[in-house]
């Protein structure tokens, strides 16, 4: 790929009020591009794989920052950086699952700039797509990652529909496990969407990974008190500890009473286009203790129904082993 040092000429808007940002987003629609930390943005534009006419830099909007306590849990502004999320005392104390997930994103510098909103709405990392090829996700009619000689070690083992890219987000699975609510604002008002239905797979929308429509901005994430101080387990398996995206990640929250698991919420990242909730495992471990025997009971259950591509069959045992680690940790 040609190495471009600079981005092409664009307009830049730096609104300081959310209303101004919403008006701009509505007016510019698909010609505009919302920028939080920008860590997913600039690569696209430098590579000329995406060509927005204007950037809407949201960083000046103070109301989108910070972590607040609410009646039922906490609310995290979408522009809160991943470093803040990883080090915030409230998040660390009550929802350490999320702070752990935020602390393993990319590199320190990227976490200093990258925001939780951006981490959730970032585009997929399939390199064929990011190279600017005319694949399904880019509006074309073929998938370069699902051919006999394609390099698809990182791709999906579930729910592929033409596109086989996976969700790259580390905070996404953690927020689905914590049953978070996404606050989406537009010029027409605000809607609140459960984290699980915030992400959409290619069978529903092949060009977008979330339910966000043109003119809408993800303004905050609400985490209910339900899973506060539960037992958590998070692990991200990647080729490198820094920068890399997960090969498979797992985020789990468990409520244990009288030695048995009464409720659980377990989610895998990087196995399909959306965070995958392991409902069959959750049901099977209910009422069981968190131990080796329970792990044996549900062995292989997480990966049931997986259909691997040529090079990602290893994700099946990896996923099952992560469930075992979660139950025996």
């Amino acid at each position, binding site marked *: 790929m040609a190495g471009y040092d600079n981005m092409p000429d664009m*307009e830049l808007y730096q*609104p300081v009020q959310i209303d101004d940002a919403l008006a*701009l987003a509505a007016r510019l629609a698909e010609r505009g591009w919302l920028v939080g930390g*920008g860590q997913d943005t600039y690569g696209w534009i430098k590579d000329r794989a995406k060509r927005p006419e204007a950037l809407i830099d949201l960083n000046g909007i103070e109301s989108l920052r910070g972590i607040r306590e609410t009646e039922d849990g906490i609310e995290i502004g979408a522009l809160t950086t991943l470093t803040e999320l990883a080090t915030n005392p409230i998040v660390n104390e009550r929802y350490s699952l999320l702070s752990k997930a935020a602390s393993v994103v990319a590199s*320190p510098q990227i976490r*200093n700039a990258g925001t939780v909103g951006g981490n959730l709405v970032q585009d997929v990392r399939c390199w064929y797509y990011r190279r600017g090829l005319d694949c399904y996700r880019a509006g074309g009619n073929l998938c370069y990652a699902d051919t006999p000689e394609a390099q698809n070690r990182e791709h999906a083992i579930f729910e592929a529909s033409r596109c086989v890219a996976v969700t790259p987000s580390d905070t996404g699975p953690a927020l689905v496990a914590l049953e978070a609510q996404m606050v989406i604002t537009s010029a027409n008002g605000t809607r609140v969407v459960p984290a699980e239905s915030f992400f959409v797979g290619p069978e529903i929308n092949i060009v977008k990974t979330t339910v966000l429509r043109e003119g809408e901005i993800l303004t905050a994430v609400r985490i209910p008190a339900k899973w506060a101080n539960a037992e958590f387990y998070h692990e991200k398996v990647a080729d490198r500890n820094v920068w890399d995206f997960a090969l498979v990640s797992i985020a789990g929250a468990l409520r244990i009473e009288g030695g048995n698991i009464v409720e659980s919420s377990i989610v895998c990242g990087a196995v399909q286009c959306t965070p995958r909730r392991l409902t069959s495992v959750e049901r099977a471990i209910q009422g069981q203790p968190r131990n080796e025997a329970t792990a044996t009971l549900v062995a292989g259950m997480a990966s049931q129904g997986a259909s691997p591509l040529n090079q990602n069959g290893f994700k099946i045992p990896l996923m099952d082993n992560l469930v075992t680690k979660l139950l025996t940790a």
Partner: protein
Amino acid sequence: MTPRLTRRRFIKSVIFSGAALSTGAGFYLTSAQTRQAGAVERLVSLNINGRTRRVDVMPQETLAYTLRYKLGLTGTKIGCNRGECGSCTVTISDVTHYACSTLTHSVKDKAVMTVEGLRAEDGTLHAVQAAFIAELSPQCGFCTPGQIMSAVALLKTNPRPTRDEARQALSGNLCRCGAYDHYLNGVMRASGQLS
């Protein structure tokens, strides 16, 4: 003392004259164009290494570009230009950022520090710089300015880090010579934990 014409000085003077030309041309172009209502002003004040600099900045310009090609601060290196190597690391309000992945317009009211700003008025090197020299930390040296900035930011918040904390703090800076342990030795020396 007459300043010798070194290779570095020569390159810098070429950059400066180029910057002067392009700034003039850019200024002419913007005044000729009609700027979209509400879009950013190109002429901005930046706070770089404690000095206020007036610069003509394109809307899409990255901080690494401004530093190197408009201000002649070539200590900040551009390696990958994609936020994947760390050689362009600078601090913005004492927090490390990749200058290649930062819009210059987003740092208008913030204090930017590059490797050039660490030296004291009298030329004394920063403790991290001195320690990196004492420990022979760099091999080829290309990633060194970034490693220094990450180490400086770490010591500001954590003056006596453990080796593991230092490893974490420098984990966003690649060194293709593989001199990682030498850099960590440097951080330990700079924090007075290695004599």
